[in-house]
């Protein structure tokens, strides 16, 4: 089999605060860490069962997720910066610290 997607892991990217798209304008840069990859090897009996129960229409019109998702398990410390209007801002839970399949 070919490796289509790497398993869920922590990635990082240097971006400016503006590029975060939260509405702040600042040329300061932050290390944005995020979770990426597949959780194929974290599937549980729960997921298989939920998928089958849904397939048999025993669950209708409900938002259920029958596969684990690769998500942050913990977040980095808050980030602070001086924006273009010389005002200081602090923003929490922007960057992931630890990732996992849940």
């Amino acid at each position: 089999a070919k490796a289509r997607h790497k398993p869920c892991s922590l990635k990082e990217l240097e971006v400016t605060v503006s590029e975060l798209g939260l509405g702040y304008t600042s040329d300061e840069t932050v290390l944005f860490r995020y979770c990426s990859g597949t959780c194929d090897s974290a599937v549980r009996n729960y997921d298989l069962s939920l998928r089958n129960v849904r397939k048999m229409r025993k669950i209708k019109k409900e938002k259920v997720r029958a596969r684990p998702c690769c998500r942050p398990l913990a977040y980095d410390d808050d980030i602070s910066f001086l924006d273009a209007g010389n005002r200081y801002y602090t923003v929490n839970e922007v960057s992931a610290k630890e990732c996992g399949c849940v």
Partner: protein
Amino acid sequence: RKEYHENVYIDQPVGLPLLRIHALKDSEEEEVHFGLCPDLVIQRDGIHKNLWFQIQENTGLLFFNRSLEKDLHKMLLGGSWATMSKLVFPVLLSSQPFQGKECQSAHSYNLQHVPHAKVTLSVINATMPSCHSTALGQMCFTDMDLSFQIKENKPPGTFHQLQLFPQQQPCQNISISYKVIADESLPFHYDQNTTTIRVTRSLDRETREKYELLAKCTVRDASKETSKEVPLLVTVLDEDDTPPFLPNGTNTADAVVEFCRKEGTVLATLMVYDADTTPIFPLENSRKKYTGTISTSDAWVKETFRVEHIFNEIYFNPNGSQVRGTQHEYKLVLNKVISITESRSFQLDVIVNDTEYQGPDKSLMLHFNISILPVSIQFPNITYQFTVNRNAANFSQIGKICINNCMRFCGINIMYSLQAPNVSCYAVNIVQSHEDKDGSLYVNDSAVLRKPECKEIQYPVLAVEKQSKKEAHSYLTVILDGKLIRNDEGCLDSCARSKTRSECEECGGLGVLTGRCQWRKGSGTGITPNYSTCSPSIRTCPDGKCDTVESKDPRICPQDCTNTNIIGGHERGLTGIKAGNGICYCFPEENCYCEKDDIKEPLCDDM
């Protein structure tokens, strides 16, 4: 009879016989004496002088010589409104007149070694049953089972009286007669007048151990007559009165030691029968009763062999009836590993002894003709040649190396090794199988296979027997063959990761022989050993065994070797997946999955 029980009522008249205890003698000249202990144990009230019961020393008639009304009732029933209580006491049996010291206290614990019968009286807090309230059946027989035990080889004697005592049968104006229905040839005689039953001769359990007679009682009153029949069972108790014998006269067996030389190997078995029973409870006593000892002064023989003795109950059928006996099995067993160089023949004797049998021929001799053959460590006179595909991956299994008879060995450990050839094309190695019988050849440096200059590689092969250090040599030729196919970098290194045939066959993985994984199409529904899966080589994986090559790396064949979590319908083997539902695939060292592949609809949360 070991136990007697009878009902006694508060208002029962005194002075009449209550019960008769019967006993048989061990020898003609023996006398029979019955006796009671001076004290009575009253369950809630402790020990009291026995003022209420008395027994006739020579007839065994038990009398009730003081009314319960006065005090025993209060003690027994504790003044509560309990309707019934039990009074238990032993009746002692002796061949000498009683001196009164047989039972220091009435507790039954010290009567283990004094022959006695246990009497249980149900003292009922009610008046004696009148005639019309007594069921017809109760007039004939008491509660007690008519079952008796008679020792074999003992003199005749009376063991029961059918007729009830007057107070046990309150109806006066009726007539009760008894009959015992039994074949004339049986060793029992029924005296119509006294209604007693006698065993008329000494019994032999080895001829017959159970007799079933029929006691018939007929009750006539003015208007009608009713009869009732109850089985009367006699069990013959065994004595060790027969010597051991050989079932078909064979006391000799051959025992050859060749390829299987490990401790515990059973070389030969001989049977000894005994017409007596041998209780398997408590086991140790019976085992000690029948011994089987090697009779030799040779220290080596004593050290090298042992005799194991097991016995179980079998049935003999002397003239039509079924009688229990014992079959003793004596197994000659290797007590330690025998070297492959050892070679000798001799006769080993075992003395079997029935320690408890007093008569002649209490022991007999068994003979084992032992021949220990040497084992040669030789390769078959061939040179080994294997063709290996140049696309083979590491841990792909090329073949087996096996010296003569190696698969028949047990207790013989062969170490195989390839001598390092002087060329740079060293791509193959060998590992012992689990029981050190044969060797498995596998690729351990696949890069060498891709070198065009490596075409044919010779290896000297060495096999060494661990204990004797004897060696054998041979030659192995590995021929590299096949056109190289490009392996995609994106491929994972474990075939087991693939969930579909296309994924499986697009890549290789550890253990593949031809550069590509092989898809095993499963069959059967539900959880089946024949699940679909992607394998490096269907011949060895999955085959339910995690062999010594597969156990070198968890990525080779997790289907056979995993101990991790298996998710989805499955059945776990000693290691690996013994059976699975649909397709089984694994993330080595993480999880394995078995699931149906029939969910085609795209999962909305994938979008």
